[in-house]
């Protein structure tokens, strides 16, 4: 290691020798950096999984424009939209098709645990509005009181989910009605519910008699090939006289939802703060280590100054130390965080995982934070005065 560094820096790796001179201190410093890394990784992992969970339902559908109520910050909340706006939107030459979707929560009381299923009511005769995987299964939804279930629902045994097939359907009771599951799709636990379910709009309305077919939760629109969703959405906002409605491109609606979850919801804000605190903890730890190290070696640095070494040489030592701490602290931090996230994913079925994007981001963030700490610590170098040596 020492030789490699010597070759790299074309000088003695003094930072490395200084840091490793006291093994316990070096280990403590690395543990500090690793700890800060773990903090940031776990918070980022949770934020990422929130983002994945938020985006999940948008992946079930295929649309270009979504019309929602003013208070609908996500797919699963907010008031209704009158279906008349769908017909009005179809008057626009670029709008070629439209569909209303319904959303509500269905509780499946199971012996062990009641599953809260976010349930979408869709028109099974319009498979174009669904993802290809989902569209392939819509024929079964045309049956009365039929549903297809998220096979990754939290609390649902995997083998039980795998057994649900058109030939071997599974039935359960919801508010006095029997619902039959004919198939499954890949959903995945979110923060809002245990899983997802798809039913036809007809079935939805039998399950929720208070809802009316003329007032779905969202309206999805498809545009002619080549039409610009942003421009058409702007046109529709002019056209639709109910100005409280939110008419956005589908991509924009998803992006708005995500930023709402991350910056307006308490959970999002808390985890965002967690990342900042992790970064601050790391900067403080590294600064503490480096400035103590500079203070401990003022005599040696003054001697080197007397020998004619320039200021940049000492800055180089401190930055060398900063980079060593960053790189060697990152490795255990990454390993521990990966294991932690995997363990948490298993325990919660949330989509928590280490991603290469996170790893790259945190690695460079660590390099930057450690360099910043090092840069601050170099201010103490000024007190190394060679005149004090004799």
């Amino acid at each position, binding site marked *: 290691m020492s030789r490699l560094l010597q070759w790299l820096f074309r000088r003695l790796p003094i930072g490395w020798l200084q840091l490793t001179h006291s093994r316990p201190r070096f280990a403590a410093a690395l543990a500090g950096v690793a700890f800060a890394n773990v903090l940031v990784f776990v918070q980022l992992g949770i934020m990422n999984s929130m983002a994945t969970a938020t985006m999940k339902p948008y992946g079930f559908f295929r649309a270009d424009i979504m019309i929602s109520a003013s208070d609908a910050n996500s797919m699963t909340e907010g008031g209704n939209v009158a279906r008349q706006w769908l017909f009005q939107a179809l008057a626009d030459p670029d709008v070629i098709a439209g569909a209303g979707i319904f959303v509500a929560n269905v509780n499946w009381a199971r012996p062990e645990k009641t599953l809260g299923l976010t349930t979408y009511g869709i028109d099974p005769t319009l498979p174009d509005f669904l993802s290809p995987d989902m569209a392939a299964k819509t024929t079964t939804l045309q049956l009365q009181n039929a549903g297809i279930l998220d096979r990754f629902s939290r609390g649902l045994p995997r083998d039980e989910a795998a057994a649900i097939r058109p030939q071997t359907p599974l039935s359960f009771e919801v508010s006095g009605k029997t619902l039959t599951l004919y198939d499954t799709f890949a959903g995945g636990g979110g923060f809002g519910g245990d899983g997802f379910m798809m039913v036809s709009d007809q079935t939805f309305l039998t399950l929720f008699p208070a809802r009316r077919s003329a007032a779905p939760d969202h309206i999805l629109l498809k545009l002619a090939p080549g039409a610009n969703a942003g421009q058409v959405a702007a046109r529709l906002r002019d056209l639709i006289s109910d100005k409280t409605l939110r008419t956005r491109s589908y991509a924009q609606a998803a992006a708005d939802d995500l930023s709402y979850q991350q910056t307006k919801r308490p959970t999002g804000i808390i985890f965002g703060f967690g990342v900042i605190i992790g970064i601050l903890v790391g900067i403080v730890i590294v600064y503490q280590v480096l400035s103590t190290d500079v203070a401990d070696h003022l005599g*040696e640095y003054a001697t080197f100054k007397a020998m004619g070494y320039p200021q940049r040489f000492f800055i180089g030592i401190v930055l060398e130390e900063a980079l060593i701490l960053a790189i060697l602290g990152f490795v255990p931090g990454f390993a521990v965080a990966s294991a932690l996230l995997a363990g948490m994913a298993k325990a919660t079925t949330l989509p928590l995982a280490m991603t290469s994007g996170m790893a790259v981001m945190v690695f460079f963030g660590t390099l930057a934070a450690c360099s910043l700490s090092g840069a601050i610590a170099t201010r103490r170098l000024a007190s190394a005065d060679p005149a004090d040596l004799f």
Partner: protein
Amino acid sequence: MTGAPPIIVTGLNHWFGTGEARKQAIFDVNLTVMRGTLTVLMGPSGSGKTTVLTLMGCLRDVQDGSVHLLGHELHGAGRELNEALRRRLGFIFQAHNLHGSLTALQNVLMGVLVHGSIDPGTQAAAARHALTLVGLADRMNYLPANLSGGQKQRVAVARALVGNPDVVFADEPTAALDHESGATVVQMLKRLGQVRGTTTVMVTHDNRILELADRIVTLEDGRIVNDTGV
């Protein structure tokens, strides 16, 4: 000895402290040191020996008067000039000031590496040679913590001399050494003066060294009171 004098001090005054506490430590010191000589600074404690040494060795900024070192005026010299000049000097401090995380050999290497891009093999060979000269061939890879006080001081001497300095400044270099190694160090400096023309200015109370000195300058209360060529 030949060549322009490496050190010419004229009308040097120096003060410590500011405001009320400001106190003059050096009064009108004039001194010309010839190339290849061994000059000894003597005087009671607090007489200003170290202060004069640090002013001549560009470790302290000259406030008043002039110090001409190796052809350069130190009064008003900038950082770059100071650094460049320091690389042509060798310092042997009272305390050894070795870097505790570096081995004896690495400490000596620091005296070579400051000169920049020399072939690494040559650098290591020079460092080994210098350590051998001070009798530490078998202690090259020891950390300072595992060396005796005298051995540490000899490493410091090797570090000061390895870069082939034009001038060596030493402040009580033999204080931590036993009789024999003290004599060896001074004889080595003396020989360097004869062979390479290295100039040495040394603060010492050691009588055995006085015998080897070419010149003895005595300071009292910041003034030169006696200046004898031996």
